[in-house]
């Protein structure tokens, strides 16, 4: 393979029109701030970014092609590995698309379990994202370690329920793989009850901090119009002031039963995007409390749906959910065989990177780092 043959030099000088020189640097793929193997070709005029081209594909494994050669069930564990921070929401998105395609009803208890696991996923994703963002700003470790301490409690819950901390492979078409184990709900209630205390601490630590405000406010501004046109979704879209949360718009699952608010930003800068995550965690806690109170007894999966030899009728369906990073969609085409004819993932992380250059132009390199940090990407999903 010739992938290594044309690796550019890490930095080179380009002649500008005015006779001075621009510096082109290659940030990544092994750069501590790129959250994985992601590369940006940045052209600098002094300290100022005048051009930024993201380079993708270092983690590309053609997830979609693999899924076209697998059974419908066989793709489920691969979806864990898209956004490996949020395997349960990935599972849900895929299960939702298949349920739309095949017309499967999900029992009520399973819907509640899905909401509980998805909101726990959102909590741990947002907590660690804020930690990572602080890490990018130079707060070496402290906020990140606090976030990871809490995240570990949620991952323990996932392990007790699904058997794995991160690669959960838990949801099935028409429900979940297994019921909640005895005592799980009380344990989860305890974790959720202790979470606001952590959030209070976290906010005392971060929100009033003058350095953070100076570094984030007015940086990486994304306008409302561009955000809509570029298909930005999730907290990043709402930070730009667009009220579009699929939990409210589509009301998939049973989200119409819970009362929660959608936090909205005003300026669309890094500060708003980071506050969006802190506020959304509070709302997730509200949903969790309601869901854990109301969860009914009953079957946890649709008994009519087969695990093996699952063949939906020919047709197509697009299902989407509000994953912690944005709209996660799955587009499936069935030709009646046990494998999907076409399987497509709409990755929120990748599409949110569309506007990376627009947000970084005119800023300096240190701002590029935190702007990228505030987008919240996971390379497993960007490159698929």
């Amino acid at each position, binding site marked *: 393979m010739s992938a290594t043959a044309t690796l550019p030099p890490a930095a080179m000088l380009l002649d500008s029109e005015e006779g001075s020189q621009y510096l082109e640097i290659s940030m990544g793929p092994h750069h501590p701030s790129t959250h994985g193997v992601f590369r940006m070709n940045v052209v600098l005029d002094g300290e100022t970014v005048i051009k930024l081209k993201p380079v993708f594909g270092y983690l590309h494994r053609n997830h979609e092609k693999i899924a076209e050669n697998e059974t419908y069930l066989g793709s489920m564990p691969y979806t864990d590995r898209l956004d490996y921070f949020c395997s349960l929401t990935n599972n849900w998105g895929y299960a939702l698309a298949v349920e739309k395609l095949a017309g499967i009803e999900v029992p009520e208890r399973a819907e509640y379990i899905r909401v509980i696991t998805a909101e726990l996923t959102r909590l741990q994703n947002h907590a660690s994202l804020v930690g990572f963002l602080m890490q990018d700003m130079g707060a070496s470790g402290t906020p990140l370690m606090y976030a990871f*301490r809490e995240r570990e409690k949620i991952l323990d819950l996932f392990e*007790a329920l*699904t*058997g794995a901390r991160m690669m959960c492979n838990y949801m099935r078409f028409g429900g979940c793989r297994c019921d909640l184990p005895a005592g799980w709900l009380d344990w989860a209630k305890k974790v959720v009850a*202790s979470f606001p205390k952590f959030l209070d*601490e976290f906010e*005392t630590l971060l*929100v*009033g901090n003058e350095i953070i405000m100076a570094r984030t406010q007015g940086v990486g501004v994304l306008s409302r119009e561009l955000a809509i046109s570029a298909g930005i979704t999730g907290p990043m879209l709402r930070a730009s002031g667009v009220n579009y949360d699929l939990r409210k718009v589509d009301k998939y699952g049973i989200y119409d039963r819970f009362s929660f608010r959608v936090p909205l930003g005003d300026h669309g800068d890094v500060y708003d995007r980071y506050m969006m995550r802190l506020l959304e965690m509070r709302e997730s806690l509200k949903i969790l409390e309601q869901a854990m109170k109301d969860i009914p007894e009953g079957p946890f999966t649709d008994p009519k749906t087969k695990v093996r030899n699952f063949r939906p009728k020919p047709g197509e369906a697009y299902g989407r959910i509000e994953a912690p990073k944005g709209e996660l969609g799955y587009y499936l085409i069935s030709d009646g065989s046990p494998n999907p004819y076409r399987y497509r993932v709409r990755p929120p992380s990748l599409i949110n990177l569309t506007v990376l250059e627009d947000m970084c132009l005119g800023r300096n390199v240190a701002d590029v780092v935190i702007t990228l940090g505030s987008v919240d990407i996971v390379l497993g999903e960007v490159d698929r």
Partner: protein
Amino acid sequence: MVGSGILKGLAETARNFVGSYASEERMTTVEYPEEKLPRIEASRNFPFLVFDGDDWHAGMRCVSCQICEKECPPKCIYIEKSTDKKPDAVGKLQNYPARFDIDISVCMSCQICVEVCPFDAIKMDNAFEYFATDRFGDLVLDKQKLSRSNEYYHQIHPTEAANVDAELAAARAKAAPKPAAPAAAAAAPAVAKPAAAPEVTASTANKPAANDPAKESNG
């Protein structure tokens, strides 16, 4: 006042620092490997084959139906059917795997083999302290290395194992009254053995098991 936010944050870190020595909820670090957390019952790592009784070969529940081989997403299981038969867990005469290999460097611990197995023959282990120096010798486990007793299964997943035992006992009670019939019934679905696949698997028979979880305590 400029700087008050930073001072507040520093007070918070100080509280956490002191708390990490004194407060129970902040003492989250465990000095592994001297100290270990209790294992969570549902946790899974790699599959193993369950056998009943003392003899791993005679008691092996697997009847080499090859469903797990077909359903395994990364295709890490390799099975060859036996030509002769032996009684399975319920007492019917069934094939057994002449060869059953799992390449655990390919396995992604997704548990789908466990879900699709109709004979409760393959289950997930939770031992994680593996090491290996030889990619093909140590990481491709043959059926002997994969075998674990039902007692071991009870030890790591007590709730699940009790359910499985109850189901198996019911199936045995159903099969017991007419011992002659099941043998004929079992013979019928046994399909012709597929053409022997070429030998592409490294022989691992003489190597000691990479890890013997029976010797380890759990927790």
